[in-house]
């Protein structure tokens, strides 16, 4: 799942249009637009709003195997051209003084720059940094749910020391819209990274099926998960493994005995498949 977080609807619109996301009518806390493997949430301006929206949408997708994140929005700059798009490699929260470092894993056409997050609009503009009002809170919140490599900010310069911030929503959308091609490429690479992580996780319904076969202690659950993740990575299907487990359960009486038998059976298959690396 790739989640886009934008402060304003006009900042979200190019993403919604590009990905053909549909507005969700099931939720009312925030405006949410969805497709099968992506969604875009409109948080409102500022750190509190973006933190709330990020946490809320993460909770909504708690069954996702892995979540990738992009905070898309506009920013101010002293020297960069209006309409130029940037990925962020350092976020400094001006009020707390704390810095965050998105991990620059993605080779992108978008150049990278630092960003300062303020509580109020910044009219002074820092020499070597963009200015926004959400990035620090977004990043700090999203790292509660995903690892930093999967959390990125993309900012398009909307105002600088010469040109003040536009109040025209269409103009703001247009600034992001004109960068949608490299932004989409960036998101595709992020999606691929996210899938690497997702592939290593068991789907929650599958995991629950295995757990229901016997009573497992906490240690046994870890062992079971390790076995299943390895065997699935080697090409065993969940149904094949479930059939193996069911056959084992059928021959034993007590639940405690079942859990040990299941683990022994899967562990043996794991050893057989790994002996030659």
């Amino acid at each position, binding site marked *: 799942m790739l989640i886009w977080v934008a402060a304003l609807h006009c900042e979200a619109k190019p993403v919604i249009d590009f990905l053909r996301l549909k507005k969700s009518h099931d939720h009312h806390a925030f405006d949410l637009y969805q497709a099968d493997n992506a969604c875009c949430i409109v948080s409102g301006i500022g750190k509190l709003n973006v933190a709330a929206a990020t946490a809320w949408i993460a909770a909504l997708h708690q069954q996702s195997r892995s979540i990738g994140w992009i905070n898309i929005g506009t920013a101010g700059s002293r020297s960069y051209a209006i309409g130029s798009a940037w990925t962020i490699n350092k976020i400094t929260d001006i009020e707390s003084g704390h810095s965050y470092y998105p991990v620059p894993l993605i080779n992108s056409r978008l150049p990278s720059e630092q960003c300062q997050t303020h509580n109020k609009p910044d009219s002074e503009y820092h020499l070597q940094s963009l200015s926004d009002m959400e990035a620090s809170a977004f990043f700090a919140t999203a790292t509660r749910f995903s690892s930093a*490599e999967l959390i990125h900010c993309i900012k398009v310069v909307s105002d600088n020391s010469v040109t003040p911030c536009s109040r025209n929503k269409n103009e703001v959308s247009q600034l992001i819209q004109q960068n949608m091609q490299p932004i989409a490429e960036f998101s595709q690479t992020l999606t691929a990274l996210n899938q690497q992580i997702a592939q290593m996780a068991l789907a929650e319904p599958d995991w629950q099926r295995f757990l229901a076969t016997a009573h497992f202690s906490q240690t046994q659950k870890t062992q079971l998960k390790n076995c299943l993740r390895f065997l699935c990575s080697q090409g065993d299907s969940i149904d094949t493994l479930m059939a193996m487990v069911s056959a084992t359960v059928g021959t034993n009486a007590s639940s405690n005995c079942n859990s040990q038998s299941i683990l022994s059976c899967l562990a043996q298959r794991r050893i057989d498949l790994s002996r030659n690396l």
Partner: protein
Amino acid sequence: MVSCVYVESSIKDHERTLRILARFKTTPVVEIEHHGEVFNPSAQNFRLQKSNPALILAHKNNRHALPTPEGYGLGGKHNYYFSHMLNCLYDCRYCFLQGMYNSAHQVIFVNYEDFDEDITQICAQHNSEPVWFFSGYDCDSLAYEPVTQFANFFVPSFNKIDNAWLELRTKSTQVRQLLKHQPCDRIVTAFSFTEQHSHDKLEHGVPSIEKRIDAMRLLVDAGWPIGLRFDPIIYHDNYRASFSHLLDTIFSTIDPNQLHSVSLGAFRLPKNNFKQVNKLYPDEPLFAQNLALNSGIIGYPLEQEQEMMRYCEQQLLQHIPAHCYHPCEWHE
């Protein structure tokens, strides 16, 4: 390929920093206060980062050289390790560094002079007794030599301390800088090898066995002492034949009488490191093998390990003189 260079503010104008940055002119540079800001946060995925790590240039404030863990060494009485780098260029699946740090970024501590000062002091404390320093504990000593110039700095520095011994441990072929210096009997370049099948499966990015043997030979020909480290030995159905073949390959080029030291150890990881790397690489067959916990270490069941070690030791001693053999012992 380096995705980004982070530079601590305190060393941004350091001569070594500037020289390293000159090699990465098109790479984004981000200034940081302390390398821990980037290196230590827990919400990081080592596996993802390893595909495209960043470089962190930092200053090491204290504890430049530390006593080695129990059992680490080559029979010397005084053993220390020091790390001018954290993390390795290569991606060996059995390596404990994967479970050691949250980040796969490579940290280079640029204040070599402070390391040198501590090493000099430690050697002075031990009067004229030999003191061993191991530099390949948290990184490969030579793999990043073109960037770090580590050997280029420390070879002259060790050369001038009469009781200081240095082990450079490597899987690289980066011997060019060493060859520019006069050989020193107290600086041993130890090459790590696993047999071909394990190399193919587990040592991602490591130069071929043949190329490393060529590098060893260049050092031997120039009069440098070298060592061999067969650690870890990894089980598979054909490990015996494959290990014997590795020995034959090495000793068809290298004269065993010119070896300073040889060590041997079976695959093992501290329990907590194992848990961490198994979580990172749930699809890795090495971690799915028949392994057991023994004295806080995950490794092969004792009987199997002893059998493996016995076989490899026996094969090894057919090639090398016994006095230079140092088994890696960690069992009580």
